[in-house]
């Protein structure tokens, strides 16, 4: 097979006094810059070179939606900021709709059928002693009257309702609502594509099309000029770095590479240190849970210690990694990618460490067959209702995040702006106003939403709380942006991937046996088993109908219809049907997760990756 090389060139004849000469100029070629080392010429060929990402902005496009108030933000501060607010608005809507789903199917039936509850021996401690608002929000869900309430899993313990004309299977409703909630989130994420607005950002593009003539106002103009300045400087720096790299002697190269390896280990060490801190504090907090009856500051600290450590880690470790990046001396583009990857890794995996710690405590891992776990399969002495405890941890994370945001907003950003505006001494002006950095803010949003996803199964009202939290966040950030911030000079690109967490959550839901003492699943062996049981209870006709819907005879014509409709999501779902019937496919995934050693990770990984990542990721629309 022949390789094809590309070269676009113009030729001409130049007239001069002593006769003309032919000239040739290469407009574009797929050869990269050639640098001569030791007299040898190296030529590298680029692939797919229409796509230079040097000028990329973080942009999230959402199918539909009207963003009137953020139009002003976009004009003054650039496209990245607008996409942050679009994303935030979308998350508010997502949480609100989820809350309606949960309210309709689980909350209201439980509320209506309240008088039929049989009391189980779930002993919860005394109600809250203090009546002030803060205690109500921060303490009573943990050990007060709100622990045993609609807020957490433990309250929904209706399993049978005799003497009624109809039968409403609360456990089934609970788990199916959760499943549909996740499916709905995934579907919505298909519509939200993280794209990047790239152009071919050569120097001539920046110079001739970089200036936005509709830029109004002195401040926006200065910002735009700084933006262009920064872009040009970054590009020039990359060029000179590349030339430097070719000029380096071998010994210097060796030193540089070994330094980079060292710094990578150092950054991993910082991240690992943060994880260890989370592990230790979570264990400490859980063990001391019974002793934290006091409602004062000490009790608050003990309860919220894991959240504090996570928040502190998310703040401190990226700063340290920034300092490390100065030593590493990568290209500016590489540095930015690396910083973002490290931040994402830190945030999401720290959440995973928290979950792992809880899991190991609940199932007494690794001493599963000793001590308190032998009887029930989980540590019933300390965790009478482990689902509520997990839900509480997620609730704590959410509330602490909100608390920190509001505190930073009131106590850091406003004073900083006042000081910078009124005091014109040099160090203060050098620090300058707060910069609204889009990527870390978007990362915070994704992290908050992930926490809610994880917690929604165990704390059904968490989406509603999250809606309120995001609404408050929206207005705080909006005020901050317009009053306190100068816009960020740099623009970035980032991708989000949170499917991993749904898999972890399903694993959690299925591996640990539900609590005997509370919740709607106290009599089942796993949460998921209610679905097959109910399925078997349906009449034969219904069963056959459902199998038929899932079978190939039905799905292939549907697939053909979907092709006509040309909807990428529909195609994705139909492909699932064609590979296997959907009920069986999903059942298979659940079984696979519950016994990983038998099923093998390959099947699950390929299933999830192939279908959801490759086929369901919508292309970014213009």
């Amino acid at each position, binding site marked *: 097979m022949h390789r094809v090389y590309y070269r676009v060139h*113009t030729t001409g004849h130049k007239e001069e006094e002593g006769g003309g000469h032919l000239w040739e100029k290469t407009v574009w070629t797929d050869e990269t810059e050639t640098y001569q080392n030791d007299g040898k010429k190296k030529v590298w060929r680029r692939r797919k070179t229409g796509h230079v990402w040097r000028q990329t902005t973080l942009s999230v496009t959402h199918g539909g939606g009207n963003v009137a108030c953020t139009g002003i933000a976009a004009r003054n501060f650039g496209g990245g900021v607008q996409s942050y607010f679009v994303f935030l608005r979308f998350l508010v809507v997502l949480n609100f709709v989820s809350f309606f789903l949960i309210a309709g199917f689980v909350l209201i039936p439980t509320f209506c059928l309240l008088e039929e509850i049989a009391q189980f021996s779930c002993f919860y401690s005394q109600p809250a002693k203090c009546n002030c608002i803060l205690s109500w929000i921060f303490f009573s869900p943990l050990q007060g009257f709100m622990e045993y309430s609609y807020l957490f899993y433990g309250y929904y313990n209706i399993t049978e309702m005799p003497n009624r004309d109809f039968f409403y299977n609360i456990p089934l409703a609970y788990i199916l609502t959760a499943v549909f909630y996740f499916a709905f989130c995934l579907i919505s994420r298909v519509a939200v594509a993280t794209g990047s607005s790239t152009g071919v950002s050569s120097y001539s*593009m920046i110079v*001739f099309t*970089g200036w936005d*003539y509709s830029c109004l106002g002195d401040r926006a103009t*200065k910002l735009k000029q700084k933006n262009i300045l920064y872009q040009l400087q970054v590009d020039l720096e990359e060029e000179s770095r590349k030339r430097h790299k070719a000029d380096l002697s071998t010994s210097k190269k060796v030193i540089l590479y070994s330094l980079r390896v060292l710094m990578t280990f150092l950054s991993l060490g910082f991240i690992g240190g943060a994880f260890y801190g989370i592990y230790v504090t979570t264990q400490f907090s859980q063990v001391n849970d019974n002793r934290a009856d006091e409602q004062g500051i000490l009790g608050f600290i003990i309860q919220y210690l894991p959240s504090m450590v996570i928040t502190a880690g998310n703040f401190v470790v990226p700063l340290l990694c920034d300092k490390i990046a100065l030593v590493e001396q990568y290209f500016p583009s590489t540095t930015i990618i690396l910083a973002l990857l490290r931040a994402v890794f830190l945030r999401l995996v720290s959440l995973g460490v928290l979950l792992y710690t809880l899991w190991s405590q609940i199932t007494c891992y690794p001493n599963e067959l000793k001590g308190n776990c032998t009887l029930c399969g989980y540590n019933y002495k300390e965790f009478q209702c482990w689902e509520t405890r997990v839900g509480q941890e997620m609730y704590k994370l959410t509330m602490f995040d909100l608390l920190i945001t509001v505190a930073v907003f009131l106590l850091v950003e406003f004073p900083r702006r006042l000081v910078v505006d009124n005091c014109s001494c040099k160090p203060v002006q050098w620090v300058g106003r707060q910069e609204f950095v889009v990527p870390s803010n978007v990362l915070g949003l994704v992290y908050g939403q992930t926490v809610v996803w994880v917690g929604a199964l165990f704390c059904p009202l968490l989406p509603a709380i999250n809606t309120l939290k995001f609404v408050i966040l929206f207005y705080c950030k909006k005020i901050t942006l317009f009053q306190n911030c100068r816009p960020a000079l740099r623009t970035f690109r980032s991708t989000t991937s949170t499917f991993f967490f749904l898999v972890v959550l399903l694993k959690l839901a299925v591996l640990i046996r539900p609590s005997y003492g509370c919740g709607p699943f106290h009599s089942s062996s796993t949460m998921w088993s209610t679905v097959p049981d109910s399925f078997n209870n349906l009449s034969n006709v219904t069963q056959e109908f459902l199998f038929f819907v899932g079978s190939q005879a039905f799905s292939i014509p549907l697939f053909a219809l979907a092709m006509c409709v040309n909807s990428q999501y529909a195609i994705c779902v139909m492909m699932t049907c064609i590979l296997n019937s959907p009920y069986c496919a999903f059942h298979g995934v659940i079984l696979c997760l519950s016994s990983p050693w038998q099923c093998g990770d390959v099947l699950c990984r390929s299933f999830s990756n192939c279908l959801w990542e490759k086929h369901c990721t919508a292309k970014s629309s213009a």
Partner: protein
Amino acid sequence: MGNKQTIFTAQQLFHRYRDLAPQLVPLDYTNHPDVKLPYELIGSMPELKDNPFRQRIAEVFSEDGEGNMTLDDFLDMFSVLSEMAPRDLKAYYAFKIYDFNNDDFICKSDLEKTLNKLTRNELTEDEVRMVCEKVIDEADLDNDGRLSLEDFQHMIVRAPDFLSTFHIRI
């Protein structure tokens, strides 16, 4: 994004023109009065006053080349800078704006002036020189060391957001 009424009429533009100097501009234009507003008034419009290229814009669209605009010049300017103008027309006028010495070529000195206006004179001389070399290297197709209108248009064709950036809302 809210109500985006960007299709403006000649009537609206006339009133904007008149509002700059009501005592100079008569309401009745049927006799084609010869009224020119000086550059200082044009340059003080809110849409233009922060634009680093406002002087060049006014010079390009004015008859006398000094920035003093009649009503026709004013209408021309805002119609070229509106959404409705075709790409070729915009490219033509953008070329003229960046051609500071009016010799129908964008040479190195024009580029240097453009660059300084874009970055507020904050690039060092070396950096300015390097960027100018790179720009000419990339865009100059006929290899004469400066950009002609064809080179410029050829480069603009490859720029997806030229139409949206070369645009003033009024």
